[in-house]
């Protein structure tokens, strides 16, 4: 609810009195007392902005004093900038007529979620992963995508997770079961190399997250992810967690 608490005129400063009168003239009868303060603040800010602008224009025109023309120009410029009004009606009618002439497009069947092309959507990831360049070893070219299948993991999870032992970066410190309980480790492979390597996973190259069958390593899950851009937030949150952990050395 809104109630008008009119302070007695004696205690109200003159500015506020003027503002109250303006509100009354404009037909606004119910308002919270904070409105007067907000309006006064706005007025002060607006007027000072205009006057400052006018001063700049007067200086530009090499005049000593600021006169009405400068003020007028200042108001005009601010009006075009902050207080724009919607386009005029005839313009809108014109645009509408043009737009309404094209027939409604046919709807293609069976296309899944009907969304605009990707660049007009907000579905793209808004992050990019930092690649750990300094860990790239000389055998960078021979890195293969981790070939993980359920049966491929042996009892030494550190190396079988990767195609070649020379792959750098994070491997799991699986050796110490204690440290692994409940933890997740990520292997980071620079995306440029991944593209070159053959993917052994039958799925598309985009699928890089493979889960090792937990039964092989007890209760530990090892999540191998690559540095490819992926579309989900859960895995990337994992990646981000360990991006700074540069102390995982290749074994």
């Amino acid at each position: 609810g809104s109630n008008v608490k009119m302070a007695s005129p004696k205690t109200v400063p003159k500015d506020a009195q003027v503002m109250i009168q303006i509100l009354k003239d404009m037909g606004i009868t119910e308002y919270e007392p904070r409105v007067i303060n907000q309006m006064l603040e706005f007025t002060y800010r607006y007027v000072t902005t205009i006057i400052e602008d006018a001063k700049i224009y007067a200086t530009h025109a090499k005049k000593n004093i600021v006169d009405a023309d400068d003020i007028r120009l200042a108001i005009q410029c601010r009006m075009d900038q902050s207080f724009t009004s919607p386009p005029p009606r005839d313009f809108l009618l014109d645009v509408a007529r043009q737009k309404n002439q094209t027939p409604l497009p046919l709807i293609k069947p069976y296309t899944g979620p009907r969304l605009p092309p990707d660049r007009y959507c907000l579905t793209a990831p808004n992050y990019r992963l930092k690649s750990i360049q300094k860990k790239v070893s000389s055998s960078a070219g021979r890195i293969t995508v981790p070939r993980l299948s359920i049966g491929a993991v042996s009892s030494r999870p550190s190396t079988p997770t990767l195609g070649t032992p020379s792959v750098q970066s994070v491997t799991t410190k699986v050796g110490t079961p204690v440290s692994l309980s409940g933890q997740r480790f990520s292997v980071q492979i620079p995306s440029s190399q991944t593209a070159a390597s053959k993917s052994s996973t039958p799925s598309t190259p985009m699928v890089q997250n493979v889960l090792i069958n937990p039964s092989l390593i007890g209760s530990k899950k090892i999540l191998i992810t690559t540095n490819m851009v992926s579309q989900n937030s859960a895995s990337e949150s994992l990646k981000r967690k360990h991006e700074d952990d540069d102390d995982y050395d290749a074994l």
Partner: protein
Amino acid sequence: MAAVQDGQLNLEVEKDIKTEITNDGSGNINANSSSPGSTSSGGKSKSPAGSGEDQQTLLAVLQFLKRNKLTESVDILRREAGLSADADDSPVSESAGAGSGGVPSVGADGGDANSLLSRVSIATPVAPPATAPPKVVAASGGEDQPDVNVVLSAYSQQGDPVLYPLYYNGLKKFIESVLDCHRAELSQVFYPLFVHMYLELVYNNHENEAKQFFEKFSGDQECYYEEDLRILSSMSKKEHMKGNETMLDFRTSKFVLRISRDSYQLLKRHLQERQNNQIWNIIQEHLYIDIFDGMPRSKSQIDAMSGSLAGEGKRDANKAKVFYGLLKEPEIEVPLDDEDEEAENEEGKPKKKKPKKDSMGSKSKKQDPNAPQQTRIPLPELKDSDKLDKIMNMKEATKKIRLGPDNLPSICFYSFLNAYQGLTAVDFTDDSSLIAGGFADSTVRVWSVTPKKLRRVKSAADLSNIDKESDDVLERIMDEKTASESKILYGHSGPVYGISFSPDRNYLLSSSEDGTVRLWSLQTFTCLVGYKGHNYPVWDTQFSPYGYYFISGGHDRVARLWATDHYQPLRMFAGHLADITCTLFHPNSNYVATGSADRTIRLWDVLTGNCVRILTGHKGPIHSLAFSPNGKFMASGATDGRVLLWDVGHGLMVGELKGHTDTIYALKFSRDGEILASGSMDNTVKLWDTLKAFDDVELDDFTAATGHIHLPENSQELLLGTYMTKSTPVIHLHFTRRNLLLAAGAYNP
């Protein structure tokens, strides 16, 4: 096409303002097509016309000489031309009209030498092609808004400003002296005349005269124009006029009056026989008099229909055929279920003796003549999930309670607590399983109404882990860990004013003060698309009943039709004079209704974008709309506290429900259309008997032709119940599939 394109009547050609007075057949009124300014001089008064133009030139030359300090030449010219010493101070003189004869009116306005000179200099290249006299062209001294200038230049000085009150008074006296039956109709002229005269005075910088004129006559106007008059009173200078889009639109569009032929003849005779042509000129330029044959209307009839910013709707505007019928429901095989004892064959006819609902499974295969073709607009095909939904819908429909005056619905109210006056929009899904609220802090929150929690789809990492072959894979893809009662959606940068669920419950739309409409996925609870197009607050948005399309309307006075897979709108519905506050699809998705702050409701055709109906009668901005389930009728609620009922097919007002004392923000018809529920800022929900309201309407040929309904004063009989909330304004209403009424509002102690 009888569609109304207001733009065709106004400044298509920049300098040409056509003034027309048309009638409905007999052509004893000539259509005046003349250019602005010279209307008066060229049209009516003959003798001073020639010298008027010369006067202008003389004055211009005089000014030029003065400026260049050729004082002797100035004196000589003055002597020879016989001009008085102070006659050259008036740059704007149209020596027109009887009042001033050949003497240029001495308006003590701000027209100094500069502006006159600029006018003169610019005039010369333009004068030959345009028929406008010089002053019209560069009316305000060369600003770079030609549209505004041309619009404003419609206010050429048409006479001595001091005489305006006299003219107005004269007309007032005349109208008071006519027969009673004509008086009500002719009194309609007062308001537009007053506004246009006032604005003319303001435009020509006669500030004092304008103020006096306003004080003297503003009290005479109808009470429902009070808001507009207040805005007018704040505009006392020309600069004020430029900033106000609504007033500018008021200028270019013609105020429509509907007057019977007899009354019109009276008026015309009176104005033409006296030398009082100022008013006649204004009427010709700014008013559109829609003449009809028949009895003059009574005051109450006029009052019911008037109130909008631009007068009433022309009869032509409401002549287009509107396909208000519903689209045929697709035939769906309902699988036999052990629990439900109903079986339907392919036609949709139930075998058991269940009460049959009209909207489901129409028996006739013939096309309803009032329904649009199935393929009139492209609609998305039904997916399997949609078919399942429809089956659920039909099953629930069989459990629907039949409502009526003796069987009122139960009302379940959802109060938003701790919203701190921030709740700005609410929507329910059709099956009433989810509520969404839009808030002033720019968040959108979704709650689950049922005990079932809201679940997100799992992340891609987890998704690859699930067994894709299992039967309940659709359950498995949901993430249990983050299941919650409510989800918050962040993304907007301004208060969220409109919310709409998609019919398949996959998407949620929200429109906000930041000018965008956002599409959210209810599977992942993230934002998918931001549709940019309005650059001003978008006050309302709504999904089509079939999904895929949605509309939005906002401060820029344009409603847009979008499809979810196009980043630009498909249709733009322009024509309103003020903000569009409310948008609604017709149940057959072929038409869109928009309610606006200019106090009219317009119905637009999705296929062509044309406005097919203009409905006037509200006295305040319209905030809620509702279509009856059979598509024939529409209800609208506004700040004036009245609910108006409309017949969509004829474009006529068929009912008026008085009772609320404050703005009506929610209107909903029950599932079969027997009851209309209205929720208002006065903290009440009222139920109205619509069967009775629509039965009582007699639409004979006369009323259909002229649009004059005599509305019975039966609001009290139609009111079935008033339910008060505890200081909670009602901002949304929703009937569940079983005809339980849900209401929502924010507790506001």
